């Protein structure tokens, strides 16, 4: 009898925790949507800003964020996957592997503003890429690299050894085994890691602050070496700078809403791709 009560109370408590979490999520979406929806319109999405940011659209920031995120993923995904393959498949479990893993985990703990400073000194100044999409994408890439590496490592680790043995026993080399047997199995989980990183890269402000972002730039970025507007930085700028806070605030909320939608759409596309791939291999 007593156990039954304890059981029910625990269930209630766990349920309450879920409700609290959902409440914060729902209210976040609600407030962003409530403040952001009124400014959303076709011209908001497709026009550049006007009147010192107090009216017009945010199209250059949307395009900028898209380029930065895409660039970061294109750089970080293959790099991270390759590191994970090396760590998990080639490197004998030993001191070297564990030192690299500790390094990767530490990298994950570095505050994003530190990455921003590093990007400024290394990519912008030392390599001479200037304040540009390239510098920003590279900085974002090293920011998301650790999470892609650890997600990929776990994905590879979850592939049962029997699959590797099956492939090797059929006369596959280790590389063929990884490419044709192990990676197809791990693909879904690797993609999940990458999807989460997309959201992270799209939303980060600090790393692009000194490396890529401009508060206002006339026209659209025309090469990877041009600086760009970006949604997260645009939100920050609208809320802290400018001359007309009353008009700027709704635009900031509009940007936040678009940013959320963008991440949502990119994630959906990635999930769709992943499922399609899984079906093909299932």
């Amino acid at each position, binding site marked *: 009898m007593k156990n039954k009560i304890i059981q029910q109370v625990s269930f209630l408590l766990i349920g309450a925790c879920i409700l609290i979490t959902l409440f914060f999520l729902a209210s976040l979406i609600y407030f962003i949507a409530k403040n952001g929806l009124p400014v959303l319109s076709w011209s908001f999405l497709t026009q550049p800003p006007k009147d010192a940011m107090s009216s017009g659209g945010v199209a250059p920031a949307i395009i900028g964020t898209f380029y930065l995120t895409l660039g970061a993923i294109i750089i970080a995904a293959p790099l991270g996957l390759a590191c994970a393959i090396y760590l998990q498949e080639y490197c*004998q*479990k030993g001191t070297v592997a564990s030192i690299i893993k500790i390094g990767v985990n530490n990298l994950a703990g570095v505050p994003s503003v530190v990455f921003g400073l590093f990007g400024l000194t290394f990519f912008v100044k030392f390599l001479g890429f200037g304040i540009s999409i390239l510098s920003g994408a590279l900085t974002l890439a090293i920011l998301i690299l650790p999470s892609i590496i650890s997600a990929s490592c776990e994905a590879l680790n979850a592939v*049962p050894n*029997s*699959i590797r*043995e*099956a*492939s*090797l*026993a*059929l*006369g*596959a*080399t280790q590389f*063929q085994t990884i490419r*044709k*047997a192990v990676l*197809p*199995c791990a693909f879904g989980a690797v993609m999940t890691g990458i999807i989460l990183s997309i959201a992270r890269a799209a939303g980060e402000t600090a790393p692009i602050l000194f490396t890529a972002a401009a508060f206002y730039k006339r026209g659209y970025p025309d090469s990877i070496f041009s600086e760009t507007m970006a949604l997260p930085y645009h939100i920050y700028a609208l809320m802290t700078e400018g001359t007309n806070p009353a008009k700027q605030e709704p635009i900031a909320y509009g940007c936040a809403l678009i940013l959320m939608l963008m991440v949502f759409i990119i994630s959906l596309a990635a999930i769709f791709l992943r499922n399609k791939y899984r079906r093909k*291999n*299932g």
Partner: protein
Amino acid sequence: MDDNKIKIEAKNINFYYGQMQILKNLSVNFYENQVTAFIGPSGCGKSTFIRLLNKMNELAPNSSVSGEIYLDGENILDKKTNAVKIRRKVGMVFQKPNPFSKTIFQNISYGLQLCKTPKKLIPEIVEESLKHAALWNEVKDRLHKSALELSGGQQQRLCIARCLAIKPEVILFDEPCASLDPISTSKIEELVLKLKKYYTIAIVTHNMQQAARVSDQTAFMYLGELIEFSPTKEMFVVPKEKKTQEYLSGRFG
């Protein structure tokens, strides 16, 4: 039996895992077109031994091995021997069915693509291999469905078909029925008997009756040593060694 032709000759094999000696001075001959069974209590080194025959144990870190295993005159244990080449000659079926999460067809074409079989020939070889593995009739209408939808016994026969497709000369079975029900087990046993016409077979088993049913030669191992190696008919009727007799009568194991 004078017509016994030796296919694989293992001489003075010692195998260490770290400080532990797993195999102690083992010498076994495998005869062509015969089934050689390995019996013995868990941990006696049976699997370790047959995994040396296709260089699978060399994957294990801090293991070392001494001795020679000749396959048609080539020393398998030689560091210079190409593992890929050996594994194409010496196929293996594992304890747990381990199909790839691909279609039935892809599971079998996997090995064929590795050895650059012309695309045109693949469907024919897939059919032939599935027929040899006595699985064709059950799967011919769903070759392009996932292999994971098959039952455990069917999966194991698929793994056998996959192994047959690359035309090995020797097949190693590492407790192939350990996770199967009695009906699937008897199907695999029938298959082993049928396959020995074309292949040289080694089978590790926990099941003494299975060894008696399918094998021509039986090796009894205990704590890393080969206690007795004789024709199955003799060993199960009049074991030469006291230990063998005790094990066969179920006194330990």
